[in-house]
């Protein structure tokens, strides 16, 4: 096991963390796939409203590479294909039938897996709809099936509030996980599994079951277990900047997919946050309506924001929304638009802050956070908080100024492509500058220009 220490970052101790309890939810009436929220893809629909689909039927493919297909997470009829501005496909909603039948793929056993070559494994993962879950750094686009990755990083990432804990989704299913890892091992020479120090025992179990896999234990706070951060702190050469990564729960899904030959539709998710009555893990369907998750958790009174994914990296949704393709958490946060009286003069024992300007430095309890910006936008006052929180040693304020000055080469030399979009620079900024947003947009634009 390789120990890795990530010195910078920030763990927001936020009220409303989920318990380790796991509740199985009833099957929802609908599920959906959200093409809009999947990176850079350009979807070509294979179905239209009213069509009948089965679990594992192709819903759409990527125009850039039509081998990359996205499969249906449910059996039933396509109720609606919602289009947004400029005809972007926002969601494909499937009304579930009472009896769900599935597409069947060829299952694999240990022996079949051991004898399989890379090309066969690639085409198998493509046709089984797993490929989109393998993404590549630094732009986090779906990996190119033709490319040979220097390594594949698998992270058991539970540092961001509030993501599912490996202790819940992995314990007792290590064999499936290891099967998934071995399948990924067909694609590359080197697999690296990153676990937090809290889950070191789990890492040990995995390495005993599958000794050829490298395990690294990451000692650090959010976002130390982000694959980009893990690669930044472990890379031995420049080629590793193009490493691939897969989420821990997706590896489990891969194991299940290959051993059963059926597209798995269930996933362990988290519903938590200060506005949720019951904060816990739930077992439910991929693409579940958020209303179902909220219904199971119960909602407190007051204006509430639905955040799909982690509190820092997730996207904003609403009661009519659905869970995303890559996300497996729903955070319910208070909007916080009420104006606090004399907030400027309060010592702030209960106000979470990265800085030492509130008495909350003495408060170790989880604190209430909301979606208020807590201040108006101002010019950068060179407080130097963002470079002291950045997990990959970027100087975000200078990279940001490079981007504003249209100096993309300057931004790149500052490490723009190492940025993991963790959002911490925007979080800590007292001038409320959207650093993370600007850097991410610059990076995405750079990628689009490169790939044209």
């Amino acid at each position, binding site marked *: 096991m390789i120990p890795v220490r990530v010195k910078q970052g920030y763990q927001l101790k936020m009220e409303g963390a989920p318990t380790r309890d796991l509740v199985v939810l009833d099957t929802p009436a609908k599920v959906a796939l959200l093409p809009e929220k999947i990176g850079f893809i350009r979807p070509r629909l294979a179905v239209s409203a009213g069509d009948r689909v089965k679990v594992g039927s192709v819903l759409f493919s990527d125009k850039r590479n039509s081998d990359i297909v996205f499969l249906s997470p449910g059996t039933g009829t396509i109720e609606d294909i919602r289009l947004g501005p400029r005809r972007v496909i926002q969601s494909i909603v499937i009304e579930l039938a009472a009896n769900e039948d599935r597409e069947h793929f060829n299952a694999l056993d240990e022996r079949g897996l051991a004898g399989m070559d890379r090309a066969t494994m690639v085409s198998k993962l493509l046709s089984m709809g797993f490929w989109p879950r393998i993404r590549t750094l630094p732009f986090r686009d779906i990996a190119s099936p033709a490319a040979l990755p220097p390594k594949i990083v698998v992270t058991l990432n539970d540092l961001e509030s509030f993501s599912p804990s490996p202790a819940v989704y992995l314990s007792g299913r290590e064999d499936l996980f290891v099967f998934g890892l071995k399948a990924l091992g067909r694609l590359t020479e080197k697999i690296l599994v990153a676990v937090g120090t809290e889950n070191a025992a789990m890492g040990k179990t995995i390495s005993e079951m599958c000794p050829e896999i490298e395990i690294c234990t990451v000692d650090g706070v959010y976002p130390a277990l982000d694959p980009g951060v893990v690669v930044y702190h472990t890379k031995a050469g420049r080629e590793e900047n193009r490493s691939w990564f897969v989420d821990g729960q997706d590896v489990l899904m891969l194991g299940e997919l290959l051993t059963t030959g059926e597209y798995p539709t269930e996933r362990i998710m988290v519903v938590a946050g200060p506005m949720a009555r019951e904060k816990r893990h739930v077992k439910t369907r991929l693409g579940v309506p958020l209303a179902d998750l909220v219904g199971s958790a119960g909602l407190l009174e007051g204006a509430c924001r639905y955040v799909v994914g982690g509190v*820092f990296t997730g996207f904003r949704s609403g009661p009519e929304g659905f869970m995303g393709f890559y996300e497996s958490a729903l955070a319910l946060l208070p909007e916080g638009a009420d104006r606090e009286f004399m907030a*400027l003069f309060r010592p*702030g024992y209960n106000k*979470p802050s990265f800085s030492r300007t509130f008495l909350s430095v003495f408060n170790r309890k989880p604190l209430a956070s909301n979606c208020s910006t807590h201040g*108006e936008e101002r010019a950068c006052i060179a407080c*130097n908080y963002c470079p002291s929180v950045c997990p990959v040693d970027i100087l975000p304020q200078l990279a940001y100024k490079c981007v504003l000055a249209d100096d993309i080469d300057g931004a790149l030399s500052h490490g723009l492509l190492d940025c993991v979009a963790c959002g911490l620079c925007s979080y800590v900024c007292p001038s409320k500058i959207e650093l993370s947003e600007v850097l991410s947009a610059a990076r995405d634009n750079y990628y689009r220009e490169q790939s044209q």
Partner: protein
Amino acid sequence: MKKSIQKIFDTQRRHFEAKGRFHSLASFFESIETVFFATDRVTETGPQVRDSLDAKRYLALVVLSLLPALCFGIYNAGYQAHKAAGLATTFVPVFIQGMTIVLPLVIVSYVVGFSWEILFSALRKHPVSEGVFVTAMLFPLTLPPTTPLWQAALGISFGVVIGKEIFGGTGRNFLNPALTGRAFLFFAYPASMAGDKVWTAAVRMTDAAVDAIGSATPLALSAAVNTTDGVEAALSSAGYSFSTLFFGRYPGSIGATSTFMCLLGVIFLIIVGVANYRIVLGGVLGILATGGLFNLLAADAASSFWTMNPLYHLVMGGAAFGLAFMATDPVSAPDMNGAKWIYGLLIGGLTVVVRLLNPAFPEGVMLAILFMNLFAPLLDHAAVSLRLKKRMPNV
């Protein structure tokens, strides 16, 4: 209380909204309103939650850290005035006397400085920055108590407009605005900014008596004496013992005489993480090292000032105030931690060099800081280049 204040803002808001008469002053309204009521703005983009700290609180903490120096400055201005006039030096009347001397300067500084900020925010469409609250507090504390109000108004105007606004406002200025204003007055009106007579306000005295009160500041005295007994002894016999100098009860700039109060303020700022200790420690080291170097070179020098214990440089004049509050201004200081050490060291070194080598300027800290402000981008450039060289490229 809360409701009545809310009512004032609610009834006045319409004038500042899109079609109101004072729409161009909307950011002024916002900056005042957010003093009383936190913003109602919520996050539009990720991350969905944000830190509780905003620029307003950050800068308010600087003003807070200046209050000990201000209070002592008020007391000291009154004390020196009463002492010179031969009046009683009990605390209450002295403090009240001090307020009549100092508060008009502070008020003029705030009113004029804030007016410029509002004017530029309306013209240049930038938010009203709280930086001006800090500038307008720093500036009067660097002035002699006898400064005419019109000069104070002129100085803060120069500082805010030329030192800051013409470069784009707070965050884009490369000079410390308060020091820029102070330097302007120093060169434009030397008669009111330097000499022996400006450091004590005259109260209830005849003109003849006013002419008689002049007493040299510790720096001027040290520069002038030529003795083999040591400058320390000369200072001591003039009433400037080390502890007097440290605690600050001697004639000088309003807020800058007390090293002790500056120390309190800067320790607070370092604890809350607003001031950077590297600049302050670098400055102290720079002063001590350069002072020590001059001690070694002093053997055949003309002035016995060179032989002075370098610790005295820390407690005389504006060195402490400058290092604590002016050099640590994050906008005009370098960003990089390594560059901050160099920046601090050179400020300290230059301060002593100006003091000891240039008879025209008894005080060097103002010029040293402004000079190093100019070099901060260069230091940053070097530090950033070094740092980026160590980075494994990712393109």
